[in-house]
């Protein structure tokens, strides 16, 4: 059947003359790289073949009848219209098949649920429209969002051919890194609306829901890069919040963690130093592009009726405190950036929008000030009884 499907696919593609453009499409579920994902794949194939066999029996009978029992062949209708025996048989056979399917399905289900004895935990938070990863054991924490190249190409009529962008829409600026052969427990939650975290090679997806902590686990057994996407409609850019997981040998992973920690220290000291307005504005521009432009537009013009313009905005050209307050805490569709941006990026973009995009207020704000303000807002931390 897989063969015939491929044949069918090949034929269809040849007819449409598409065969050459992209050869790497697939027709079936991936087996994945964990024991769970292989179990799931096995179940999928099992139920698929059950359906194929039932299909052949039912459609075979039907087409036999359509061919032989037609009036044009002079077939006379017989008038039978019930048979308790046969009806009992075709109720019992499916029941037995279902029971036989339910048994392995239950086993896999229970196995998936067993998050006990994990070696490490990662908390995943869904945001409109990026992922936040927090390694609960090492304290490493960062956001992961669509990479620049994809983001440029996916704009309406960007003129960039997606085929020229490597891993179009499946690439992020900062991937999740995990060690192989390690039982990793994931904790899922969301900051704004519901999202769903799916990497097909791991064999499952899990919804991330505000106010909830969902759990799942994985243990990857092959180093590699595995890609997935958000699968719960979460608003405008739902299609543009991919997931990339890089699985490494343990020593490589350890080295990566050390590097992340050093980076964090460097960032913290950057926040304490005095920044010039020029440096802030220069840095702020790219922060704006990555975080703000999708709503307020690249030129700051906003979107009439939905997203206010930055250019000429009374708030932005007015009191700095009010602007920073709105950015820290959010309002309606405007996310709370207080937890999303580090002090340097936050100060940079705050300064940039007052002195760029057609505005020229002339003032600036220091990362240290932001750091103090961020310390004051209650973070939405959830208790987790890890270890």
């Amino acid at each position, binding site marked *: 059947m897989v063969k015939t499907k491929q044949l069918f696919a090949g034929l*269809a593609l040849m007819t*449409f003359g*598409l065969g050459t*453009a*992209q050869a790497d*499409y*697939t*027709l079936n579920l991936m087996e994945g790289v964990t024991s769970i994902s292989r179990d*799931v794949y096995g*179940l999928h194939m099992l139920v698929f073949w059950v*359906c194929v066999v039932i299909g052949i029996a*039912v459609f075979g*009978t*039907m087409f036999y*009848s359509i061919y032989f*029992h*037609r*009036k*044009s062949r002079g077939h006379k*209708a017989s*008038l039978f*219209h019930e048979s308790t025996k046969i009806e009992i048989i075709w109720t019992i056979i*499916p029941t037995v098949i*279902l029971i036989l399917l*339910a048994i392995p*399905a239950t086993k896999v*289900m229970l196995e*998936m*649920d067993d998050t006990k004895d994990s070696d490490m935990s990662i908390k995943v938070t869904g945001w409109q429209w990026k992922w936040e990863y927090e390694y609960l054991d090492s304290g490493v924490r960062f956001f992961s969002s669509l990479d620049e190249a994809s983001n440029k*190409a*996916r*704009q*309406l009529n*960007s003129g*960039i051919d*997606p*085929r020229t962008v490597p891993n*179009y*829409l499946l690439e992020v600026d900062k991937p999740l890194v995990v060690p192989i052969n390690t039982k990793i427990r994931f904790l899922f939650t969301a900051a*704004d*609306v*519901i999202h769903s975290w799916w990497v097909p090679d791991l064999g*499952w997806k*899990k919804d991330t*829901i*505000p*106010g*909830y902590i*969902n*759990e799942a686990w994985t243990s990857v057994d092959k180093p590699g890069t595995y890609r997935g*996407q*958000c699968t*719960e409609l979460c*608003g*405008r850019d739902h*299609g543009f919040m991919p997931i990339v997981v890089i699985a490494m040998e343990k020593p490589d992973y350890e080295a990566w963690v050390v590097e992340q920690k050093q980076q964090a220290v460097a960032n913290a000291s950057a926040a304490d130093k005095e920044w010039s307005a020029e440096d802030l504005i220069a840095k702020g521009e790219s922060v704006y592009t990555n975080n703000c432009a999708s709503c307020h537009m690249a030129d700051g013009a906003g979107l009439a*009726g*939905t997203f206010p313009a930055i250019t000429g905005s009374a708030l932005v050209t007015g009191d700095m405190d009010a602007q920073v307050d709105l950015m820290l805490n959010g309002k*309606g*569709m405007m996310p709370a950036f207080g937890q999303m941006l580090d002090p340097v990026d936050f100060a940079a973009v705050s300064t940039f929008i007052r002195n760029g995009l057609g505005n020229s207020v002339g003032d600036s704000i220091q990362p240290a000030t932001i750091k103090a303000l961020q310390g004051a807002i209650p973070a939405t931390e959830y208790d987790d009884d890890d270890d």
Partner: protein
Amino acid sequence: MSAVVAEHEHDDHHDHGPEKGFLRWIITTNHKDIGTLYLVFALAMFFVGGSMALIIRAELFEPGMQFVSPQFFNSMTTMHALVMVFGAVMPAFVGFANWQIPLMIGAPDMALPRMNNMSFWLLVAGILMLASTLFMEGGAPASGWTLYPPLVLQTGAALPFAIFSVHLLGISSIMGAINIIATIFNMRAPKMTLMKMPLFVWTWLITAFLLIAIMPVFAGAVTMLLTDRFFDTSFFDAAGGGDPVLYQHIFWFFGHPEVYVMILPTFGIASTIIPVFARKPLFGYSSMVYATAAIAFLSFIVWAHHMFTVGMPMAGELYFMYATMLIAIPTGVKIFNWTATMWEGSMTFETPMLFSIAFVVLFTLGGFTGLMMALAPVDFQYHDTYFIVAHFHYTLVPASVFIIMAGAYFWVPKWTGHMYDERLARFHFWLSAISVNILFFPQHFLGLAGMPRRIPDYAVQFADWNMVSSIGAFIFGFSQLLFVYIMYKTVKGGTGEKVSDEVWEDAHKHSLEWSLPSPVPYHTFDTPPEKIPTEHF
């Protein structure tokens, strides 16, 4: 319709015929007129919803964003589903119910004719209000037809209007359902016992109970959204002590039976058409009735199979998995019964039969994917991908929609007294049957390969099958213009040959309407029929 009017003028009955002119269609309380209104409205909405689908498929034709913004794309998926479900498929079946139930049970009209008129016009009002949201600040709802919070609460000015339109549609459906139940229980011809009713009547009776049970639940859920947004309640807001998943439970308690509202009458029409063209009684009439009732019952206790990934407790996951698998049993019984009805028949393949056979085959494919998704651990992979988009479109388009067209071809000669153009109709069938598979079959591959649903743009490895699917969509969509042309021509006189009273060979053995004159007079069964077709039962 003009033929119906002319016919009536000859008879010297003293009660009045249809109102003259346009007003007839506004104030009518005649079940046939109201049936026509529903069917014409459904057809119009089929094209409105279909145009939205073509916008979606045009954007998905190639990777990259070419035509619409992501927000508008989301509005399109949302509105497409709402219009198709509430504006096209459900009203089409209510239209058939209006025309056929009185004719099939030997009643002069529906039990509550004025309410009948009102439920139609409320439907129009509801759909117009829904459509008006497209022009509002912030755009139409873009959170999917499931309207999940918190996302749906980010809708702009459209939110209250969308919610009120759900209320109107709900009231309309409930009134229609009450009318159908009252008619079936009170107005059957004396000999028409419940177990002698045609299966179409049975399936609608059960559907009507489903509707009465679920529409208030949906109305309640959206009202809670309304108060969350405007009156500071926090039913679904975790920050205020509420629970976003509660909404999903309520929604799917409505939503799963709702999909059966769209399929049970489908079963009924298929069970009516297949025996006529197999020239055999329906196989297993009583098991068909019981299977329908069983499916309806089960539909209330499987809702969370739409929510396997929300993180339910293990016991919940397992229970909903087992319960969902059970649905396959009565569904299987139905498919086996239709096959057994064809077996040893003397079949001919006029267009209604062609559509019905395609329904049995393609609906079965949808049932297979349903069974696959019932297995919770595997659904963790399938959920919210194109695989499920393929699943429910197989159960809705080549099933419900095909059977709506089968029903139209089947009964329109009776209603108008004119025969449709069989050659063109078969051409319409083959175009539809082939293109619907080009449209939806590749979506199985896309889902399995990892393409999520409800995305306006995709990674390049999904490009090929999306293009195939879009090509199928355009062929399918434009083929339906042929249906409009065929129906229009039929109403206007058809092939010119006068159809006999029974239209289809020996149809009078199957159901009452075929012993009435063709076209059916404006008023029928002023006195209940003495005899009813008993051959099968």
